Each structure stands twice: as structure tokens, then as C-alpha cells.
């Protein structure tokens, strides 16, 4: 067991956990932040995507101990004051969400991408989300949602 402090969604939490624990397991089990999902535990599907210093990473591939003190944002940290973030709201409004299991990761990835590229083409959105698998949507409405969010922020 090692003692570390994780900074998640602006809050510091002291944790005692095995050195081998992934960030995803630490978030879900130790911090009870279950919005990030485990669908492959292998870095393939993106369901566990979180922001690490603003950059999207697969939390299942990151060891918790290696990111102590760094800025971590999860799906739970995107909105403010109990309100959905613009990207979250766009996913709701575009009808992109079906079972929802992929959506935390999808929305986190999309949020980081739009911050980098506020006026993307649909093709660019597809490229940016190529690491996020969804089995329900066929992706059309997902791309619509990101486009919607981009349009709104430009307005």
C-alpha cells in the first residue's frame, strides 16, 4: 500500500492504495466516482476517458500512483453547480445517448477536443472520437452532438 493524494475535479483526496491500482479503479472503487466506466480495461474503448491536465487519457491504462497531484477531471467534474456542461447538454439535446455506458468517456473526449478545435468538421470530430467505441448509436447523433456544441459555443 502506498499513500498518495489525488486531485480530482478540483478536490484533493488522500488515499492509501496498492501501487498497481489503476486510476480507473481508484476513481471507481476508492473515490466512488462511478461515472467513468470499465468496458475493456485495455485502453481500446475509451469508456474510462478522463482529463489529465486537460488531456484525455484512458484511466484504465494509468496507474493512480503516477498521477498524484496532477489535475484530473472526470465526467462528474464537467458540469457546474449541478448543471450539465454545454457538451453534456448537447449530447442530451442531439439525442446521442442510448444505453449511455460509453457516454461518459465520449463526452469527456469531445470536451477536450472542442477546447482544442472549436470549429471542427464532421470528419475531424470522427477522428477525435476514434478511440471511443459505442455499440448503440452508430455514431451519427454523437457527431451531431459535438457539432451542436461547437455551433452553440460559437454563437
Amino acid at each position, binding site marked *: 500500500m502506498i499513500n498518495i493524494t489525488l486531485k480530482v475535479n478540483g478536490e484533493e483526496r488522500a488515499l492509501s492504495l496498492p501501487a498497481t491500482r489503476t486510476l480507473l479503479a481508484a476513481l471507481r472503487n476508492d473515490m466512488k466516482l462511478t461515472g467513468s466506466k470499465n468496458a475493456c480495461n485495455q485502453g481500446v*474503448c475509451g469508456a474510462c476517458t478522463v482529463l489529465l491536465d486537460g488531456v484525455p487519457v484512458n484511466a484504465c491504462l494509468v496507474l493512480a500512483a503516477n498521477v498524484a497531484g496532477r489535475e484530473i477531471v472526470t465526467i462528474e467534474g464537467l458540469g457546474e453547480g449541478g448543471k450539465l456542461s454545454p457538451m*453534456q447538454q448537447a449530447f442530451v439535446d442531439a439525442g446521442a445517448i442510448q444505453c449511455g455506458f460509453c457516454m461518459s468517456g465520449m463526452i469527456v473526449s469531445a470536451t477536450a477536443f472542442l477546447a482544442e478545435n472549436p470549429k471542427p468538421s464532421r470528419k475531424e470530430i470522427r477522428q477525435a472520437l476514434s478511440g471511443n467505441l459505442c455499440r448503440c448509436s452508430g455514431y451519427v447523433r454523437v457527431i451531431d452532438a459535438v457539432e451542436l456544441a461547437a455551433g452553440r459555443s460559437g454563437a
Partner: protein
Amino acid sequence: MSDIESATESAIGKSPPRLEAAEKAAGTAIYSGDMELPGMLHAALLTSPYSHARILSYDVSAALALPGVKAVVTAEDISGGYIGLVCKDEKALAHGKVRYIGEPVAAVAARDEATARLAARLIEVEYEELPAATTVEQAMAEGAPVLHEDFADYTKIYQAPENEGNLLARAEAVMGRGVDGFDEADVIVEGTYEVGAQYHAYMEPVSVLAAFGPDGRVTVWSSTQSIFRTQANIHEGLGIPMGKIRCVAPRIGGGFGAKAEASGQLVTVMLAKKAGMPVRLVLTRDEDMTSMRARHPGTLRVKTGAKADGTLVAREMEVWLDAGAYADDSPAVMNLVLFYARGSYSIPHVRALGHAVYTNKLRLGAFRGFGNPQASFAAESQLDEIAEKLGIDPIELRIKNAIKAGEQWLGGQRITSCALVESLEKVRDASDWTRRREAAPGRKRGLGVAAMTHTSAFLSSGAIVRLQGDGSIILNVGAVDIGQGSDTALSQMCAAALGLDIEQVSFATPDTDSAPYNYGTNASRVTYTVGQAVHRAAMQVRAQLLEHAAAMLECSEGQLELRPGGRIGVDVEPPRNAEVSFADIAGRSLWAVGGPITGSGSYIPNDPPDPEHTKMTGFLGLDALSVLTFGAQVVEVEVDEVTGAVEVIEAWCAHDVGRAINPGAVESQIHGGFVQGQGYALCEEMLWEDGRLVNPSFMDYKFPGTLDTPDKIHAIILETPEKSHPFHVKGVGEPPLVGAAPAINNALSAATGLRLKQIPLTPERVLRGLLEKG
């Protein structure tokens, strides 16, 4: 009553955000694997390393000695009997024998997951390895190892073939003159088609939380498509009375058929019971892929006869499905392959023969389409071969032979409404078919078409509608929304029947303690079948509301009008400004007259086959299967002749849904279903070597991502009112998947002249085909 229609228009035909969309976007939606209870233990499985072996003994002492381990269970702890919807041949854990690699043999509950996994590896099982049959050919060979020696003794709900071997089911359907009908044909095309095993790949791996209460009742939260099938399986498999089993469905991360029957629930309940503490099981992706289910791989020999003018006269189909180690839904899936063998056409003479065979691998089971994707891939591909031979346009050929409302389907059921021709015309026009087919023959790009038919009414459902004190409604149906949006659509129907806005209807969490029975979320049945029950229950509530209102407003019921938003007014000349709200009525019912206002509705389709029309043997009853829905798809592909890769450029999918309660959700089903079908067509295949699954991960099992899928999937909704339903609806969950594979295959042929008969159409197969063709 007047104006009901206008009052109800508010809720139907609109696409409000799904009821649970915001919580899913926020990351606060709770799935089974997110749940925890005080004192909860974690489960881990020990699975079989052999395809086929006798279990000689267990030694669990080392596992139990590990600190933190609270319980270990093996088949010796099973207190119940066999489970299985159509053939009871499976138990909660492997007992006596193991029949596939990955089959759960024992399980551990421990303080934490790592300890549980470690302990599972410390369980010693002594096996005697047996010869295995991992393919249909091996399993049907003379002297093949027998998987189920007790097959004859199993309880079955179909007429099973008598055999000493591995033949699980055999069924035959003959219409008209059967194979003799080929004597009317000028042209006959015959071919053998092969389909691969597709993994459901729902993003949420199977997860279960089970806890016994002080009253001895067990509550099971799990990723399931049916709380009632979960309850029944626990009851039968563990001998616990149904009244002591409460099954609840939190949010579900997809199912597509695999979560319709039992998965990890039984073993989790066993552990919770033995440990006396709550237990949670969350499968890894590898465990899920090796121990759950997949779509049946199989071989289909198909023969079609046509007259020179394109009139189809005869069809023969002989099907062999690999069922895997346990029956599960296999006999039913095989039956449904035959049900769709004739395709969507008025072919007078048909013979369809099917087999399902036990093999030493993962059980194959229900998967979106349920036999239809296999049948349609083969038959719709062959239809294009005929079109080519006759020099007739493939869409023309389909329209010429299209089945129509009033005609009988294979089995004899009458088609109630049918927009097949319209669907074909729609996709032809939308895709600019005629011009583009002619523009580029034999180039890298090509258009292909497929038509499809699917059921949408199946088995029983109930609904309870309750008026609350504030005039709002609670709708309780026990149907699980696995992501398709049924919570929202059913709430819209309930709101419509009562003239309410959807916000005034709350949807109860599916819970066997309170919900009326519902068979499950499968067979594209929920909107149609549960919708019937919702309407009946809502109408009972409406009748009571009107009775109260008449008394309160001192008029006759005939003078009342239901007004939007939960009010009832008097509609007389001269106008009287008098109305009561649902809240007023609720108050009267709760505190003065009549008691609580509750409505309940039950429904089961009953549409028995006609033995005069089709001779059927070896089938399960098809009585509770009804209401066919139709559609057509056109796909454009581009083929890379260097790599063999097939890219889907654009798709046009026209589906007749009777009436779209929520058009946005219908379109989403079309997008998602088509893309899952594209995966089936092009890249998805579970591969076994000597019974071992060689690609049990998302790394090795590829399904389409954002870069593999077309941006333009045109969802075309057709609305031909289905008069047997109060809201005129039909299902749409499965059909969008069904057409994709044959349409893509036909497009590949149009693009390259290459005609393949095996899916997935991997680059390797396409390239090999192109090279052989020269």
C-alpha cells in the same frame, strides 16, 4: 367524449430527450456494477480450461484459507435444478462435466476483488479430459463425443429429435408443394452461405449485485433484459421460491439479446447466500466474451426458383446452426431462421429445414435479429444472383414479388399491414438508384439492396397505471430499457392516452416486487406489446377519471372532454366554465369516494399458425408471435482492390414503424442497428481454435468505430398505421441490423463483380476472391 385525438397529439410523434438522458450525460446514472452495499463482497470465477472434461473432484481448502475469503461455491452447492427457456439442460455452475473453455466451474466471494481472483486460482479441480466436438461437423460425425448424455430426459417445450448424439433440434416447414415447386421454375440458383459468430459487445459487461435481507428474501440488481426471466432462472436453478426473489434492473449498458436469459445472477446469489453478505460480480471483458453468448454461426444451403419473367416460385433452405454447449435459445433461433427463409416475398412453394447442434464451445443465443440476419444474408444475397441471371433490376425483382397485406406468412399468419413496396421505392428514389447503378458498373463503387421483414409482437406483458395525489401518473411495466428508449416511448403512450404531457408521467424502475409480468426486452416487442398493455391500463384510469368528473361537475360522461395537461371539462352549449383537474379527482378518490385510481392492462398476442397453410414439425409454438414489420435498405460501398477493404460510403434505410411514437428514438435505432449489421457484414467474427476463443478482447475482436462508419445513414421512417395497435405502432429494434449484411454483400458484387457467400467480408476474403476471379 370528444377531442381525445387532439388532446393526445401532444405526447406522440415527438422526440423529447430520453427520460434518463441527463443522468447518463452527467455520469450519475447507476448501472449494476456501480452499486455497492455495506459489507459487500466481490466475486471471482474459476472457469474451465477444457472444452470437454469430467469433473472428478474439487479441493477448495486453499482458497478458503486465504484471508479475506468468505465463501466458495461449486456445483455441490447448487440447490435447484436445470434452467433454460426452451430446453432445461444447464445449471448454475458446471456440474459433472465441463462443456466449453471458459465455462464457470466455481466461484469465490472475498473482501476485495484481487483476493477473490487469487482465491479462485487456488481452487483445485480434478478433471478427466474427454474428446471434444468443437464444430458442427465434428459433433455430427459418426461416433462423435456426446455432450449431453441425458438429453432425452431434459424438459423441453418443443418436439426434440430423438438421437443418441448432439442434434439439439430439428424443424421443418413446408408450404405449397415444397421442393416439387421447382418444376415451375425456368431458372434455379443454388448456393451455400456461411455466417460467422458475432459477439454482442454491449459496452457494459455482465454485472450483478445480490443481497439477502433479514427476511430471507434475496434482491438481485443485474444487467438484464428481463427482470422476470432473471427471477424465473434463479427460482428454477436454485430452488428459491419466486416470492423470495426480487429482481431489479438499474440502468443497463446494452444487451442486444445476450442479457435476455440468465448470466452471472445465479452464481452471485449462491455466493451471497453462503457468505451471508451482499456479493457483487462484475465480469471482465475476457470473461464476458468467453462465458456469455454470441450470434449463431452456421451454414445455409439455399435454392431459389423463378420464372423467366422474375416471378419467384420456389425456395428451399437447409440450415445448420452451431448451438454451442447449452441449448439456451438455439432451438427458437433456428425456428426463426426458417420463419424468415421465404424472405419478404410471395413464394408459393417452400421447404425450410433447420438443425441446431450441440458443440463444445460457448452457448450461442439470442442476438438482435434472432435468426433473421442469417436467413436474410443468404436469401437476400441469392435474390441478387437471380436478378443478375434474369437481367432484372434487383429492386424491380423485389417489388414484383413483394408480399402484401392480407397475404399469409410462412406458418399461415395474415399480414396486417405492409409497406414493403413503399420501402423499396423510397430507398430506390432516395439513393438515386437507377442512375447510379447504371453509371458505374464494375467500378470500385457499387450500390446494393436488401429487404427485410421482422416480428414485433411476442409473448405477454402487463402495465399498471396509477394516479397520484397531485394528479400525476406512475407507469409501471417491468420492461427494461436497455438503451433503446422504451421508457420514454412507453411514457409518451401513457401520457397520450390521458392527454398529459410526458413530464406528468413517471416511469417506475423495473422491479419484480411491484411490476406486472413482462417477458422481456427482445424480439422488437416492447413498443408494440407493452404498448398494448399500457393503453389498456391507461384507459381504465381514464374511465375512472371520467366517472369522478361527471359526478363532480354534475353532468353526464358524454358531456365531458379530456383537456391537455390533466384536466376534464364540460363541453356543452352554452359553454359552462367548469372543469376539474386530475389532482382534484385524485383528492376525491383518496379522501372521499371510490378509493385510489389504478388501472391495469395485460396483453399477449394470439395468432396461431395455420396447419393447412404450412406443415410444420419440430417447431416451438408460434402462437404468441405476430405483427410483421417491413423495410428495405440500400448501401453504397467502395472497395479497395489493393487491400480488399470494403468501406460503407452511405446507407439509406427505410423502415415501416406503423407510427413513430418518438421519431428521434426510431432514427437512433436505425443508425445503431445498421452499424451493428455493418460490423456483422464486414469485420466481426469470434474465432475458436480447438474450442478456445482466440480473440476474447476488444483489441482482437473489432467492431465499427467512428472512422469505420458512414456519416450518412439516412433513416427513412414510413408510417403505415398498424390497426391492431391503439397507437398504430410496430417494432423497429432489430430490422435495421437485418438488411445490412446482404445489402453490403450485394453492393460489393455490384462494385466488383465478386459474389461472396461468407460473412464477415473481411479484406482477406475479398482480396482472395478478387484474385481468384482475376
